[in-house]
């Protein structure tokens, strides 16, 4: 599964893995804005940014083909809209949609596969995102594995029962799926109550206290400066020297 692979990648030990999540988030946002606001010489710029990201992926010790392939998850969706633009007589815009969304997805993927999600959420918290929301996201991610596994068991069980009347009784299968979801819902609810009890048993006072694990050092500042400048310089250079204005 996608998130399991990303989590495995995020346990690496490269220099990029060791950077403070805030430095990586800052550089990510700069990259995304550079890509999102670009409008001239897009193919050349895309090539330059792709080279930049690929270099970072390789330096982080993440398999390049795997990362490029996983970022391509966005392509089916964007290709539809790219195609629509092309049909509407604006192929340049269609191409821009595909290029920009692919590069953005690759950049996000690079950050997530070099940072553990809890560290990323902690970084977002110190950058000003609402802590309550981030705690919810943290629990969501923690129990995503558990509840997904339960869902898989249930859909297997449903399939083994429903396989005999495939195609005949869509209505019955619809009801079966709804019943499975209802059971999953009730179980998840019960799971949440168990978790809350376990929290209370260990003295939960009503709000979360967490270990301070982040340290923004000089190396992080240098990284943030360099990683932010790289895409800006790349874009400026391409827009200045590229022969074909798009």
């Amino acid at each position: 599964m996608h998130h399991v692979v990303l989590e495995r990648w995020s346990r690496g030990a490269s220099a990029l893995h060791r950077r403070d999540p805030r430095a990586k988030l800052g550089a990510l946002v700069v990259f995304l804005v550079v890509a999102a606001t670009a409008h001239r010489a897009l193919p050349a710029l895309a090539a330059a940014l792709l080279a930049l990201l690929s270099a970072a992926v390789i330096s982080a010790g993440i398999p390049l083909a795997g990362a490029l392939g996983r970022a391509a998850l966005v392509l089916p969706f964007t290709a539809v809209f790219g195609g629509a633009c092309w049909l509407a007589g604006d192929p340049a815009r269609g191409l821009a949609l595909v290029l920009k969304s692919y590069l953005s997805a690759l950049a996000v993927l690079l950050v997530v596969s070099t940072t553990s999600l809890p560290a990323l959420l902690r970084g977002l918290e110190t950058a000003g995102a609402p802590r309550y929301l981030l705690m919810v996201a943290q629990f969501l991610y923690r129990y995503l594995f558990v509840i997904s596994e339960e869902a898989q068991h249930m859909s297997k069980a449903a399939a083994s029962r429903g396989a005999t009347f495939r195609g005949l009784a869509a209505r019955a299968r619809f009801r079966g799926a709804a019943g499975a979801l209802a059971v999953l819902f009730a179980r998840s609810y019960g799971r949440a109550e168990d978790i809350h009890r376990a929290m209370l048993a260990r003295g939960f006072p009503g709000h979360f206290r967490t270990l301070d694990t982040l340290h923004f050092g000089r190396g992080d500042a240098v990284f943030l400066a360099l990683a932010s400048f790289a895409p800006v310089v790349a874009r400026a250079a391409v827009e200045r020297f590229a022969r074909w204005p798009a």
Partner: protein
Amino acid sequence: MARLIDVRNLRFRYEDGAAALNGVDFRLEEGEAVALFGANGSGKTTFVMHLNGLLAGEGSVEVCGLAVDRQTIPAIRRKIGLVFQDSESQLFMPTVLEDVAFGPLNLGMSSEQAAARAHAALATVGMAAAASRAPYHLSAGEKKRVAIAGILAMDPEILVLDEPTTFLDPPGQRALAGLLADLPQAKILVTHNIPFALATCNRAVFFQGGVIAAEGSVEEMVSRFGWDFTPDPSKLNRRQRA
């Protein structure tokens, strides 16, 4: 020997009206390890939830000399550590270290103190190397050890374990029994596992219909209530032949 737990005439009824406890009397002394036997639904888990105020019934519950009520609950929850049956619900933080540090942080310790406590507790249960891992990726036995570390990090005087062997294979059960034997705290174990209870407990009580029907040694309770299962060798052979 000091008395750690003193429960008198505890009664409890669930919201749907089902009576769960009908007058439980129970004591726990320092250094004891007590097995709680009884059929499913006989009130064992409901009973242990009263010990740290997760449920509140009628009658009196005293833990380390403190009557369990709204004021004393924070103090009681640091004296009595409850290990739940399903480790997946107990290990809710994203990493092992953060999970074990959850209790110490709630006690008001600084980040450094809590981390030091957590590392020490993980070393006690032999899980020091797993500090930065995600709980989901641990084996059932490792999860149970981390859950126990999360309790030990709060330095309790009493450990309560609800069905601790449920998801463990036999070597995992043996390892857990060894770990528990090495821990100095008084223990209450809710379990159906007779060999495990024999290895870890010096007393047993038997729950029936929401009361403690009898108490004595583990062997005594097992033989008196027929509370074990050994397959009949003749039937076993016949099935194997067929």
